[in-house]
């Protein structure tokens, strides 16, 4: 037998439990319409997996768990999905939240149960996923998904919370009295998963029938049922852990870190129903009490509108509002349209007799009564001062977030200050500031990254441009294969010419090929002229040799001229081809000019060569017939086409020159 410890403070308000705990759990008639909230648990709301107009059966999943911290939602009865959207929910703000509205068909047809019969062999993960999909959440008030709480596999003590310390509420009391065996089955499953060394069931000693029922059900199981003194808030998780194990859970430490996990009896009951009977959480035990004709406990389907239940229990004419939860920690419902959720444990109809208006609040006199009763061992008057002054930083330093909002301080305050309201205000402000700070940090991060990205892109672009700019001289000269080929041909020609003439300037820019050809043609012409002159001057001395040399030189000049003409033509062709793609405007003009000039020069060179040859031939007719015939006859043959073209071009050039001359003459006349 474990010995009990004491937690700090606590109060003992009037219980009002006998109002509702005397009658067995009843089942009210099904309402015509049910409003099932999609967010009945801590974490992400469930995602609706049915569509409007769809027919559903009781127990059918209508909302799927979204993410790790979430739980599924099921249809509480058979019927038609009427709407999916914002609807009033049980929340102090009266704001709307997404709900699934079901029109009951009154038949209450059930889908086939899907239990997990071999749970003893099933793995921890399998059972937890199963519970999540069955919508099992903590029914003590926090509605934390049970699947997450079962993740701990080694435990010293498993605490079962049957304390039910708040006045008026008796749903756990009735549940333990009537369904103790099923709760114990649930404990067995939890114990199987978490392997605790001890299972301690704490029940306040104002519920002797429940203690007896649980002791009977636990007989032989090794689970220990402990009667704890009736002292509010012994049902708080930290307070119950302190009571049963003597362990104090410090600030910022989770109970599981100390080897303790706490479950409400209602949670374990629904856990058993889900695993053994295959019944998802579609109902819960709910206390209807206060100013009602027939107060008592009911098994209410999730989604049943509060008005339906209260009317069934007999709302009185002098009703002054309804509290959801207990009188200490509950809140006034802003309306009765909302449906029962997994967190709804009690509805209290208020009357002036039961809940007299709170007297006028007076200034805090620092009497310290609140600190005496605070179960979290805080200094409530300090928290009140800080919250009132909106000094959130100091409120947080005074461990505001260890406050469990039990309301003991407000209860004992001789100045009637609504202390817990101040703490709730301060907590919400701090949370909102925290959210804003997180959003600002995220925005800063995203902005910084954007700046980084823009700069990086800019740098990359600059790098690309630089990479393109460096090899430009090589590539810009030959952007396409045509031009490259032309240049290669020109280079080959240059090399040929160099070998041939030996006087080609190596440095000449390749793009000026036509010009060079012209220069070479001019040189050839000069050579031909020289030859002609020489032959003219010294034909008497050595007529045979002279004629021969002149003929050879003439042939060479012709060849050079032809080559120049050809190269000029090729160049013109190549550069005009490439010019079409690269530089359309300036390229063709100089090429054309060069071409023309080359042709003219070639023609002139040819003429000079002919003249030289003729004169040489005339001079040395008798002596060197064979030489002239040998040198002049074969030369024209292979260059027939080129010569012809050169001749045509020369003629054209001559015509142009003549025209120019004529023009000039005319101009001169004028």
């Amino acid at each position: 037998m474990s010995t009990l410890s004491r937690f700090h403070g606590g109060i003992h308000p009037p219980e009002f439990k006998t109002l509702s705990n005397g009658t067995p759990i009843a089942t009210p008639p099904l309402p015509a319409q049910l409003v099932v909230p999609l967010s009945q648990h801590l974490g992400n709301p469930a995602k609706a997996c049915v569509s409007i107009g769809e027919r559903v059966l009781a127990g059918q999943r209508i909302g799927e768990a979204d993410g790790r911290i979430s739980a599924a939602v099921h249809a509480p009865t058979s019927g038609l999905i009427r709407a999916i959207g914002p609807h009033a929910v049980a929340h102090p703000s009266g704001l709307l939240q997404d709900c699934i509205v079901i029109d009951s068909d009154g038949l209450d047809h059930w889908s086939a149960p899907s239990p997990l019969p071999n749970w003893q062999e099933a793995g921890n993960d399998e059972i937890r996923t199963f519970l999540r999909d069955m919508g099992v959440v903590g029914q003590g008030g926090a509605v934390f998904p049970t699947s997450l709480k079962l993740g701990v596999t080694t435990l010293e003590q498993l605490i079962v919370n049957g304390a039910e310390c708040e006045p008026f509420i008796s749903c756990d009391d009735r549940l333990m009295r009537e369904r103790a065996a099923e709760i114990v089955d649930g404990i067995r499953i939890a114990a199987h998963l978490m392997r605790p060394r001890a299972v301690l069931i704490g029940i306040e000693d104002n519920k002797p029938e429940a203690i007896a029922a649980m002791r009977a059900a636990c007989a032989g199981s090794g689970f220990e049922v402990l009667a704890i003194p009736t002292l509010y808030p012994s049902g708080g998780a930290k307070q119950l852990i302190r009571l049963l194990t003597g362990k104090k859970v410090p600030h910022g430490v989770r109970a599981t870190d100390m080897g303790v996990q706490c479950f409400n009896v209602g949670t374990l009951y629904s856990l058993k129903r889900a695993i053994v009977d295959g019944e998802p959480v579609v109902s819960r035990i709910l206390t209807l009490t206060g100013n009602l004709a027939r107060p008592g406990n009911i098994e209410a389907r999730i989604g049943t509108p509060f008005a339906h239940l209260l009317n069934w229990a007999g709302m009185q004419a002098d009703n002054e509002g309804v509290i959801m939860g207990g009188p200490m920690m509950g809140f006034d419902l802003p309306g009765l349209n909302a449906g029962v959720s997994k967190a709804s444990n009690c509805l209290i109809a208020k009357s002036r007799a039961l809940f007299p208006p709170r007297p006028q609040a007076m200034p805090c006199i620092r009497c310290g009564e609140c600190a005496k009763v605070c179960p979290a061992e805080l200094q409530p008057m300090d928290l009140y001062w800080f919250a009132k002054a909106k000094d959130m930083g100091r409120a947080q330093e005074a461990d505001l977030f260890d406050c469990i909002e039990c309301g003991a301080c407000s209860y004992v305050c001789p100045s009637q200050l609504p202390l817990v309201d101040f703490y709730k205000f301060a907590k919400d402000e701090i949370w909102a500031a925290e959210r804003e700070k997180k959003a600002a940090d995220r925005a800063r991060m995203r902005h910084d990254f954007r700046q980084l990205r823009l700069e990086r892109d800019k740098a990359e672009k600059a790098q690309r441009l630089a990479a393109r700019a460096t090899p430009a001289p090589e590539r810009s000269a030959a952007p396409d294969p045509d031009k490259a080929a032309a240049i290669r041909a020109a280079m080959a020609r240059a090399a040929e010419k160099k070998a041939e003439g030996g006087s080609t300037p190596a440095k000449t820019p390749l793009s000026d090929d036509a010009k060079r050809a012209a220069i070479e043609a001019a040189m050839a012409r000069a050579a031909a002229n020289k030859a002609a002159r020489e032959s003219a001057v010294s034909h008497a001395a050595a007529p045979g040799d002279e004629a021969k040399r002149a003929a050879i030189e003439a042939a060479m000049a012709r060849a050079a001229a032809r080559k120049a003409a050809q190269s000029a033509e090729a160049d013109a062709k190549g550069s005009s081809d490439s010019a079409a793609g690269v530089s359309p405007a300036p390229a063709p003009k100089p090429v054309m000019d060069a071409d023309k000039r080359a042709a003219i020069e070639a023609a002139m060179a040819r003429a000079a060569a002919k003249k030289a040859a003729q004169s040489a031939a005339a001079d040395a007719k008798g002596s060197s017939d064979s030489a002239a015939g040998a040198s002049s006859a074969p030369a024209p043959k292979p260059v027939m086409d080129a010569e012809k073209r050169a001749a045509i071009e020369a003629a054209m050039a001559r015509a142009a020159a003549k025209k120019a001359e004529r023009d000039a003459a005319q101009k001169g006349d004028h």
Partner: protein
Amino acid sequence: MSGFLTALAIMAALAILLGAILGFASVRFRVEADPLVDKIDAILPQTQCGQCSFPGCRPYAEAIAGGEADINQCPPGGEDGIRKLAELLGVDFKPFDEGAIEVKPKSVALIDETTCIGCTLCIQACPVDAIVGAAKQMHTIIASECTGCELCLPPCPVDCIQMVPVGTTVANWKWSYPVIPIKVVKA
């Protein structure tokens, strides 16, 4: 007399020693960056809206730290933000200039997707990359990342973006400041 001189010598020696330690520490443990800018930047709301006439929150923080800008130029930060800045910098609270900039409730941009022509101009304007879309594809705003800076409004050629105030939901609802009702007592 000798006691006086000894005391003087001891004090002088101490002064030199401590001075040397301080001098060494000021060199050895010098803080390179300006931590004040970070502190100011942490207070600013990071909307990056440019309503302060600086290109983003950090440039404004740098300007405040450098004494070039006033603390009352950030409308999204509200008067609360000015108060925090005043407290941090040890200066007096200074309200917003008369009619200079109006403080609006927190809003997020919403693109009318039927009107959007997919020009990507708003995407380029968004300082926090909260708009997704591609050329000639419908754009949309990631509401959770939108800071409500309104920088996407002017570039839109078809005026399909509007600011929608963020309403109160169950998730962001706050418990109001408790007020103690005052009753009129007849004399």
